[in-house]
């Protein structure tokens, strides 16, 4: 459950200036902060270092903090490409640093409040109650507050469209290939017809062959995908310095691929053979 001011939700972006470390002391009384791995790496900071943070680029009114830990930021697909150089402070410390001089302590506003309910199923009802009782506050169940999911739903549709185009192109090529391959076996099929095999029997054989070839191709494709999965993830994780997973070959994905590839391959074989089988055995066997 997330509560936010009713007006347009602008993320509260605070520019912090990390000044050079001043000391390394486990005995320091400075408040604790966590820093992101990327920030630690870029500035050469370690746990225990005392740093100074300021909200102004000039470093005015800087306060000392002790790095209590280094964390791996939760991968945020919406911030792909941006190196997360971030610091996590306790809320009172943050408010102390960012409070305007004319605002008394306790009168600050925050961008959102996360609420854990005893019964998560009550989220919708709780949100309705809050919206009715607190004008100016917008309460949303957590599932509806994930605005960053929007771009990825769009990307999913985009990838699906690309996949459909690829399948159409592959099908056309497959038909061309199967027509050629079937044509290559024209004489064999003619002989089979002449020795008395019915068209249905030959078609069944062709269908089985098509299934075996398409099945083998699908398995080969899945093995290739599984092998390249690691490679692609490693490349993009390195490229964007993120722990995000870009490619994941799940059971559902694998099953969908097989469900499309095998019937498509087998159908292409049968369709390509059908025109050939309509001709007479003598005509097929004729050189």
């Amino acid at each position, binding site marked *: 459950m997330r509560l936010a001011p009713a*007006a347009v939700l*602008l993320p509260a972006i605070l520019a912090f200036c990390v000044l050079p470390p001043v000391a390394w002391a486990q005995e320091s009384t400075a408040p604790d902060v966590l820093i992101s791995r990327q920030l630690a790496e870029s500035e050469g900071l370690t746990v225990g270092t005392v740093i100074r943070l300021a909200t102004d680029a000039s470093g005015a009114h800087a306060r000392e903090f002790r790095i209590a830990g280094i964390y791996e930021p939760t991968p945020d697909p919406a911030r792909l490409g941006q190196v997360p150089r971030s610091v996590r402070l306790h809320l009172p410390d943050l408010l102390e640093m960012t409070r305007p001089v004319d605002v008394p302590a306790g009168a600050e*506003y925050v961008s959102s409040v996360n609420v854990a309910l005893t019964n998560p199923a009550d989220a919708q009802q709780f949100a309705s109650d809050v919206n009715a009782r607190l004008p100016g506050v917008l309460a949303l169940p957590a599932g509806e507050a994930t605005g960053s999911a929007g771009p990825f739903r769009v990307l999913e549709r985009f990838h699906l469209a690309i996949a459909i185009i690829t399948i*159409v192109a592959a099908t056309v090529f497959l038909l061309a290939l199967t027509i*050629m391959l079937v044509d290559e076996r024209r004489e064999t099929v003619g002989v089979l017809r002449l020795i008395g095999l019915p068209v249905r029997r030959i078609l069944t054989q062709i269908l089985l062959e098509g299934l075996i070839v398409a099945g083998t191709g699908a398995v080969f494709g899945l093995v290739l995908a599984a092998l390249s999965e690691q490679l692609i993830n490693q490349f993009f994780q390195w490229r964007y310095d993120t722990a995000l997973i870009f490619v994941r070959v799940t059971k559902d994905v694998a099953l969908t691929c097989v469900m499309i590839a095998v019937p498509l391959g087998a159908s292409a074989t049968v369709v390509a053979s059908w025109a050939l089988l309509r001709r007479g055995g003598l005509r097929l066997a004729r050189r």
Partner: protein
Amino acid sequence: MNALGFAWRSLVRQPARAALGVLGVAAVGALLFDMLLLSRGLIVSMQDLLDRGGWDVRVSAGDLPGSGLRLPHAIATAESIAQLPSVQGALIVRTASAQVDRASATPLHVSFQGVATRSTDPAGSRLRAPWTILRGRDAEGPNEIVVDERLASQTGTGPGGEIIVRATCVADLEALPATRLTIAGIAEFPFQTTSDSTVGGTLAALAAACGGNIGDEADLILVTSRGDADGTAASIRAEHPDVRAATNSEVVGRLQQTGFTYFQQISSVLTTVTVSFAVLLITVLLTVSVNQRLGEVAALRALGFSRMRVVKDVLCESALIVGTGGLLSLPLGWAMASGLDRILKGMPGIPAALHFFVFESRALVVHVALLVATAVIAALYPMRIVSRLPIAATLRDEVIG
């Protein structure tokens, strides 16, 4: 008959397989063309959007305009920038969230842009606001605004009409009185998203809507130089080290390093996959086709066709399949690009005028170059087969077989 004519006859002799080969190349080529349009589409489109307004330097508090940070002491900063010798004019842009009341429906959430020009140059003081007037005229007075088409239609008003606006300039929890503003015109806002509505006016109009509680901050200061954008940006940075001044190209460069990189990566990956796929399949098509005609090729060699000539025949066959498919791929790719662009523009926060797939002549040149390379590479193996074909042995096998 030359090699091209001979290859053409070879293809039309088996129209079904030739047509399928061409269609396959057209589909793959269309995808390739789209990926090339996508690779730089956002950059070209964003550069065009930024340049369209005529402002060539953007001054903001964050690395990128629109980062959410605000410039303090905006009016003094803009006046100081306007006095730089290389500056023609500066425009203060302040954005606030607002609500437009409707008589019988829920209020509409809109973005309110307030602008004010600062210039020491008569030409600079006439610089226009960052929107384009479609109907009516620009907002001038403190009680006038321009609105976009969507808002005009949702409120059922137009130039001369009035709407009630409640704007919040400082904190989201302010409860401000309603302000009645007159619509002077209907405008198009270049960075407006497909799902939002925008209101524009003078900084005084925004101040009036916010009950005077506007502060002295700006989201952005747009600057027009006298010609040297880079020099102007450098002068502003030197004069005001606490702000970020970037030319339009620098803004695009920064975006290229962050938000746009995903599409360049996916475009590169899909271009590689598509070209490899096309090479593999055309190689298989040509190889199978040549293998079926080995006897025919051997007979031609026996009749006096040179080795080079039969190799040329195969190359021409490949060129005809890829060339015809490549030609078809252009209109097909353009149609597909429109559909894919519509899908991607469904992303929240994307300006309606921004396009992911943008035509550039260099994309066409790369497309043609890749297809030529595909035709040549795909023909290499079948060309090798026909060039090394033993004439007598092949003819004997053909007869005995």
